[in-house]
């Protein structure tokens, strides 16, 4: 069974057709990279999958659970919307950490709110709630250690470098254990010399078999880490295949142009 199924996804902004019928599937444990020039619709596709944009038509299924269906007229309830939301995680280009919270709190906040609500709904005792929160704290520490920032637990985002902030953002997404972790150009806002530390974390996650969908401009990285590469052009998937197929034997004329332009740069 596919972990992600995207069927006939279309999205317009005013008169601009950004997505013109996107279809693709992703297998569990696979890393899929989406490449393409700006304006090709790759970020919009990612935003539709993660629920930040509502597509005009089409259907998205994550792990057998329909998270979006344009044909469904009934609005999802609050709980359903949240459940859909938590199927996917997203790491932004510009990190978007919460500046007023420490690294630890940035990572724990969402999960804490979730668990508190759950405990309240199930009328758990105060001790049980406390234990659950302590558990979150413990798992946060583990995850933060796994992105190499144990020494920054009590620091604020403004005290971290861009690369460190992005690693916190990854930890923040991981703690909610999404079925698919999405990245929207995770290194585009970073200085070239520190993209490496973020890419290393993503590489490690790929090694652990995490399902990831990555919009990126780092061609070398996409080639190395992906099981499959999707090339988007003008709102459609123009070519897809293994990295070897896409990078070494591109069939699509646009893709050839795009690759020679990025290689020249």
């Amino acid at each position, binding site marked *: 069974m596919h972990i992600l199924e995207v069927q006939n996804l279309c999205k317009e902004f005013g008169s601009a057709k950004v997505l013109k019928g996107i279809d693709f599937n992703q297998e569990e444990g696979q890393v899929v990279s989406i490449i393409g020039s700006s304006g090709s619709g790759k970020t919009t596709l990612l935003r539709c999958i993660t*629920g930040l944009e509502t597509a005009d038509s089409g259907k998205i299924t994550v792990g057998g659970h329909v998270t979006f269906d344009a044909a469904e007229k009934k609005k999802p309830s609050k709980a359903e919307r949240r459940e859909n*939301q938590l199927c996917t995680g997203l790491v932004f280009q510009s990190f978007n950490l919460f500046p007023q919270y420490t690294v630890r709190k940035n990572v724990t906040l969402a999960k804490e709110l979730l668990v508190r609500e759950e405990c309240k709904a199930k009328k758990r005792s105060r001790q049980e709630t406390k234990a659950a929160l302590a558990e979150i704290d413990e798992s946060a520490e583990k995850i933060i250690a796994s992105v190499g920032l144990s020494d920054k637990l009590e620091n604020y*985002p403004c005290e971290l470098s861009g690369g460190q902030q992005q690693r916190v953002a990854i930890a923040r997404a991981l703690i909610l254990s999404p079925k698919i972790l999405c990245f929207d150009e995770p290194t585009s806002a970073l200085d070239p010399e520190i993209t490496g530390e973020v890419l290393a974390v993503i590489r490690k996650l790929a090694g652990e078999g995490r399902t990831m969908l990555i919009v990126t401009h780092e061609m070398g990285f996409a080639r190395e880490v992906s099981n499959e590469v999707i090339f988007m052009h003008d709102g459609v998937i123009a070519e897809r295949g293994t990295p070897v197929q896409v990078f070494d034997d591109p069939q699509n004329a646009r893709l050839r142009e795009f690759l020679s332009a990025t290689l020249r740069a």
Partner: protein
Amino acid sequence: MTFTQVTTDLLNGFYENLLIFFVTLLGAIPFGLIITFGSMSRFKPVKWLVKTFIWIIRGTPLMLQLFAVLYVPGLVFGIPMQSRMTAALIAFIINYAAYFSEIFRGGIESIPKGQYEAGQVLGMTKTQVFFKVVLLQVIKRIVPPMGNEIITLVKDTSLARVIAIAELIMAAERYAGRGYIWPLFYTGAFFLIFNGLLSLLFHFIEKKLDYYKG
């Protein structure tokens, strides 16, 4: 007429200013927040109604609004205002809520969209995003303009004398009527000291929120 006597008289007057000040603050902050949400409403009629309200309140003198609140209920609706102080408090709260609401709106709209989106993709509800993510950032950004507005409020309270509330300057004017001018200037000291304390408080709050940037 001794200095102590004048001071006591003026202090009695200043009590009215302080009363107006604190009650206005207490009323105008929540009311202002409601106006903010109205002016940011996606439902157009509400938005324009609220925008018109803000235009009228900011576009006419507070002095006129004091008269309006005092007289209009009696003249138009046949229910005269029971007390002048009530009229003053209503006028001040409405007036300051309109100004506060614009500061709040500016603060809320200055928060990057990415903060809301980050909250959303982490599965937070809109309410949680507002209270847990956005609010403190808004507060940090609006402390300086709110400080300005609140200090203006302290001085504006003396406008209440136009509807015969015996506040500080009116108390001093009674002396001026009898040929003693200096108590009038002495009132400045009351405003200065109180606003000095407020400035220290705002400075303290700013420092408190200085632990993070962004």
